[in-house]
């Protein structure tokens, strides 16, 4: 799965937690969940759970800590998919 495909699949997962609609429309590889999208940090665990479900992967605690922006999230998803 390429980066763009992953971003497209991440959009509906992230959308419910976004408080800044404008920032969401400009979502790209460099977007940071907290500083750019203004997502409440407590909700990051919800995003991780939804990502696990959508991609049928399991994300370990170490990876989870890094899932603060799209770039890292995409890399982690790709790694986990490759491990399957």
């Amino acid at each position, binding site marked *: 799965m390429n980066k763009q495909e992953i971003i497209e699949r991440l959009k509906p997962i992230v959308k*419910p*937690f976004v408080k800044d609609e404008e920032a969401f429309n400009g979502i790209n590889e460099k977007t940071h969940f907290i500083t750019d999208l203004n997502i*409440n940090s*407590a*909700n990051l*665990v*919800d995003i991780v*759970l939804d990502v696990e479900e959508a991609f049928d992967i399991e994300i370990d605690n170490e990876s989870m800590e890094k899932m603060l922006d799209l770039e890292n999230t995409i890399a982690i998803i790709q790694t986990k998919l490759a491990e399957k």
Partner: protein
Amino acid sequence: MKKRVVITGLGIVAPNGVGLETFTNAIKNGVSGIKFDAELERLKFSCQISGTPKISEELKREYFTELELRNFNSTGILYGVIAGIDAWKDAGLTIENNENPDWESGTIFGTGTSGIEKFRESIYKIDDFQTRRLGSTAVAQTMNSGISAYLGGKLGLGNQVTTNSSACTTGTESILLGFERIQQGKAKRMLVGSTSDSGPYIWGGFDAIKVCTFKHNEKPEKGSRPMSATASGFVPGSGAGALVIEDLETALARGARIYAEILGGNINSGGQRGEGTMTAPNSIAVQKCITDALKDANVNPNEIDAINGHLTATSKDSLEIQNWSQALGRKGTDFPFINSLKSMVGHCLSGAGSVESVATVLQIYKSFIFPNINCEDLNDEIKTLISEDKIPKQLLHKELNIVAKASFGFGDVNGCVIFKKYKD
């Protein structure tokens, strides 16, 4: 100099009516909110009827965002937030989104448990080694102070934000705790009230000790029978009541509508001594609570026009009447009017005191006494204590000046608050 405290806003989520207008009509007309409960039947409860407020999905969305409703499973917080926000708006207050919170406003909003369904869901996940899948709101929904935390955040409250818990006295206690805080000048405005979860996991323990009626599963609306000769236990209920209470000067300065004044009250415990136990009241403490409430309010027992009792529809109803009678030194035709909202809504447990207080305050503001339903066959002992016409079975239109409301709870705890019609 103690501050005077008045009630300027009300909110209600009751089994027989959600929202002030529906609820007022329901209590005036003796409308029962008790229904057959299929889930209790499925789970083989002895008592298969309950008082559960009806909340539509549309209504939920007026108070919660889609995000908040994700994995939301706490009826107590649902009822409490609706009642609390309604009371705030009813008081003519707005929800501001300022940089700083409102330092002068707080909340004391009680509950017995929080999010018991969410707790159940979480426990199943934990036992299935799925702790990491609990989600971000498991704590907020199941901590006992969840309700005050939700309300505090929605309203931006900057004064005390807490949850009290004292079984069936919870709601009455919350009013008195907020009252004292304003009286002492520590807050100008408090959102007080209480809520209770609904469903089998909150009611099961009561069903197990057989304090709920199992004789009216075929006639739900006849099931809750306070003061009746055929009372056979309470009907489990749930819901929330909320009151915005304010320092009189603050209320007058902003031209707020005033429902009633809180003159005073008392909270005590029988200490589970004498005839008091975990589940039975110590009558000496009950009477002392009432007389101390009158002293605190500086009211003579003869000035009480009406009582809103605890009166759950167990065998203890006549003992409660006897306690009121002795505490006030009034009996027979000299006894005040008395009614029990539980005849229409069941026992809303930790929500009871506030739901019933909202009804009591409405009676004062709109000059009526709501009817007691299901006591056409009045308990014989009660008949020997007070005159039957003091227990209205039809709506009475009547000016009420001073009304006492009391609640009693497991743990041998008591609360009594004295409300008065507000006159300039």
